[in-house]
């Protein structure tokens, strides 16, 4: 009977639309902030810089261990292989945590041969970097 009243039905329709639009808007805002909060880009930047600094301060013969537990969720969500997430080539550290992205690239000044490996230790994902001397000056 309520909808027989034209003004009343208009008002109710308007209120329902208002609530639906509000839910959509604030839902979208919440989703955006939640998605930004996971921030793969920030982790890519942090890990690439951390690894570059560790390599630069290392001496030949050292083995550097880095805990990658914070990366686990990205690896599982984006179905990335361990070899894909961290790459070391020509004095660059490249960390990639999302499919299709080029990853964050950061240069280091040392000219070592760096051998990477991954280990699982008590539920911890560990990156092992072996620092070895190589033929100098060949970039």
């Amino acid at each position, binding site marked *: 009977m309520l909808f027989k009243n034209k003004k009343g039905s208009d008002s109710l329709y308007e209120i329902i639309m208002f609530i639906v639009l509000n839910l959509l*808007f604030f839902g979208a805002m919440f989703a*955006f902030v939640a998605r930004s909060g996971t921030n793969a*880009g920030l982790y890519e930047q942090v890990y*690439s810089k951390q690894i570059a600094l560790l390599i630069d*301060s290392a001496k030949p013969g050292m083995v550097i261990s880095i805990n990658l537990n914070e990366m686990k969720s990205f690896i599982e969500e984006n179905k990335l292989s361990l070899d894909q997430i961290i790459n070391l080539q020509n*004095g660059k550290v490249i960390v990639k945590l999302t499919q299709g992205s080029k990853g964050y690239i*950061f240069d280091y*000044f040392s000219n*070592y041969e760096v051998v990477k490996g991954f280990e699982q230790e008590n539920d911890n994902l560990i990156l092992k970097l072996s620092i070895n001397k190589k033929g100098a000056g060949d*970039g």
Partner: protein
Amino acid sequence: MAKMSSRFIKISGKRADEKILSFYMFIVWIIIALAIVGGVYIFYSARLDIRNIQSESLANNLIGCLTEDGFIKTKVLEENFDVFSECNLNKNIIEDKREFFLKVSFKDVDSGQEIRELIIAGEKDFEIQCGLRENAEVRDEYAVCASKEIYILYKTINPQSNKLENKKAIIDIFTGSNVLGGVF
């Protein structure tokens, strides 16, 4: 007024509408959305600047490879000394990409004379940029530098007695980095 519809209120002879879904509501939503997106973008686009740590690290690396047991390594004072091979430095990154700068001077403490020529590599402009950082308004794209001075001994042949003797030297190391990193 009592007969008037509840949806309209008469103010100063004009009819004010109580509409909930109004144009202004969408304007307010756009403003809120822009504020949230802008805030998130500014927060997450902040760069983690580690150029000062890299410069320090390069300076420490140089100290470690130029000296040994409190003495300047003898091969450092030889003419054909190659800082890149001796200090495990990547020539491609330092010289070609020009993301680093290093300058090392060796002076005898007593005479003040240079005991070997300067070791310079990388982007020479960093020295000027870092000078400007100290004196003028800082620009973020300028390099960040580190400077270290160490007193050390070196072995040299005394021209009068023709004997090997230890002398005091000062090594002045100036390094700079402008590695910003990013997604290329």
